């Protein structure tokens, strides 16, 4: 088991190297570089800079070097924990990202827990009562949920809350807590606000996971061991929860590999619409303003979270299913 985890961990740095290279290439793709954007920012604020100074700066930042050297300089500074300086905010990128990273991860994880807490019982119930009202309702929610873009759902909810209940549901805190230091009251306030974006983010996934759970469980419920247990007089709920559910869980755990990363990248859109503190809107601004090193840093973090999600599902799967360990 430890060897299995170690093997997967060894892959992580390799993947990060590939990703960082691709991300750097994308960052370099737009015409101009960091300094062209910087000079434009300076010009718009009224100050100017001479051509000699630009040339000197270009040399200092290594911007006159070939692509591969620039890439190497970037990676080297990454290892020193230096993500560069944001053009727009004139602050270190690491600070900017750090401020929002915690809440980004919190939102995705919260949405993930919410999804499972709803999807698993719903899936079990609809497998035990196929063609019941709840089962049909979940099918409809699944179709509509998958067909509705996340941002659309957020927009509709915001409009309904505003038009009918006259409340604003943007942001993660009540106004008095936005800049307050961390306290129990602030955490409670956060919990009171985070469930709605969490739900918006997870609703399509919830419906889909409950369908997967239902299909897996239905397959198991027809097997002879279930009939045997039932014939021996085992109570239905106890029987289902004890054996078939455990087996039906495996395919569900393997969905974590794509679902958790999908939540991280999906939170970008929901956070932008609902105005949440999140690295998503930060990335969007950075991309639009060509704040390249900030965008690159955020893209790297997204990639890291994605790999971590896949890794987590592999390890969990190996933990609950001995067959996978044996194969490796």
């Amino acid at each position, binding site marked *: 088991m430890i060897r299995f985890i170690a093997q997967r961990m060894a892959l992580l740095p390799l993947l990060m190297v590939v990703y960082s290279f691709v991300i750097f290439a994308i960052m370099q793709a737009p015409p101009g570089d960091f300094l062209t954007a910087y000079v434009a920012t300076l010009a718009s604020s009224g100050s100017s800079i001479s051509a000699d100074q630009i040339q000197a700066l270009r040399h200092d930042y290594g911007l006159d070097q070939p692509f591969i050297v620039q890439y190497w300089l970037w990676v080297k500074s990454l290892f020193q924990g230096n993500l560069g300086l944001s053009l727009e905010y004139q602050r270190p990128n690491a600070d900017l990202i750090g401020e929002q990273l915690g809440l980004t991860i919190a939102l995705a994880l919260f949405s993930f827990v919410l999804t499972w807490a709803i999807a698993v019982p719903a899936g079990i119930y609809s497998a035990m009562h196929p063609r019941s009202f709840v089962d049909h309702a979940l099918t409809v929610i699944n179709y509509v949920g998958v067909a509705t873009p996340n941002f659309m759902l957020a927009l509709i909810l915001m409009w309904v809350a505003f038009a009918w209940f006259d409340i604003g549901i943007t942001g993660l805190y009540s106004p008095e807590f936005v800049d307050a230091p961390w306290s129990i009251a602030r955490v409670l306030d956060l919990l009171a606000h985070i469930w709605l974006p969490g739900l918006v983010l997870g609703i399509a996934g919830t419906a889909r996971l409950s369908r997967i759970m239902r299909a897996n469980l239905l397959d198991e419920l027809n097997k002879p061991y279930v009939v045997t247990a039932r014939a021996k007089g085992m109570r239905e709920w106890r029987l289902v929860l004890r054996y078939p559910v455990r087996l039906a869980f495996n395919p569900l755990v393997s969905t974590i590999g794509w679902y958790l990363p999908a939540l991280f*990248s999906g939170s970008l859109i929901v956070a932008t619409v609902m105005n949440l503190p999140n690295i998503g809107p930060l990335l969007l601004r950075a991309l639009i303003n060509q704040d390249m090193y900030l965008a690159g840093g955020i893209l790297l973090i997204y990639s890291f979270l994605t790999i971590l999600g896949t890794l987590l599902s592999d390890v969990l799967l190996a933990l609950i299913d001995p067959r996978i360990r044996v194969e490796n």
Partner: protein
Amino acid sequence: MSVEATTSSPSGAAAEDRVAVASNWRLVWWRFRRHHLAMASAALLACLYIVVLLPDFFATQDPERTDARQAFIPVQSIHLFDDGALSPWVPAIVGKRNPVTLRMEWQTDTSKKVRIHFLAPGPSWKVFGLFETNVHLIAPADPKQRIFLLGSDRLGRDQWSRIMHGTQTSMTVGLVAVALSVILGIVLGGLSGYVGGKTDQVIQRLIELLQSVPTIPIWLALSAALPRDWTPVQVFFAITVILSLVGWTTLGREVRGRFLALREEDFVLAARLAGCSRARIILRHMMPTFLSHIIATSSLAIPVMIINETSLSFLGLGIRPPAISLGVLLQEAQNIQTLALAPWLLIPGLVVIVSVLAFNLVGDGLRDAADPYSQ
């Protein structure tokens, strides 16, 4: 499934004979036809694609025509009958300036009727860019009068006409992006499955890498890297390429799996022994057996592309104005103040939801029908 159940004709020897000699495609069609929801969705999609072909016919006016004095006009719904007689009309709009906010507030007034005609002349347009005509599905009786069947936006542009053009762009993006994915998926997946060995290894690792990419952030970064001075057409194709870059992997996997399964089949061996070339074996003998699966998988990929395009454009990094797509239209509905004022700006989103729903239902129907010999 019993074979008799596939046919809707009266059972008996004649029907059984019909099934026995029916071609693969006929069997698929018979099976698909039993999905009533999928059939209804297919009809809906057919209507949508008529709009895609002729958006100007359905539009009531130029989608770019602005008028600041006609901003945020609410929906003017069509009434077919007037005093029991067939005489279509829409209620007139009367505006009053709010003395406090100094904003125009519009009301529909059903006592004042604006006559409209069906299949009547309006602004002229070209059918497929070739023949000029001025016939529109709906046109106001007085050509100088503007009607807003789905309201107007911040700049007083007619949302109904804009949705017709936006539908054209968004539905086409979906189709083109999936077409690109299918080509990539078949070529690379086919290579992977048929050649095997090192090629297979390389392509499989590539697919794994692409599938583990954080899609939305990378799409955004790629679209942001597009030069700002590109024409809408160039941006359109760049966006479809970006979307299909990740989209082909699912299809590639599917095609590879089919090739691997079929490679060992007797009929492939027979074809090889009969001296068929590799291309002939692939195109003539292997492809037809899984073509229906590819069609089913790609029809499920189209709605994903439509949602992705809409999301990218909504965030301002997809299709860019002056091009119109459903995502571009939804940009108008980005903040809660506008939404509270003009909730009809969410209607383009309904078009997205309905079309994606229809595509998913058709795709599910096709997937179930793709293998008519299965249980």
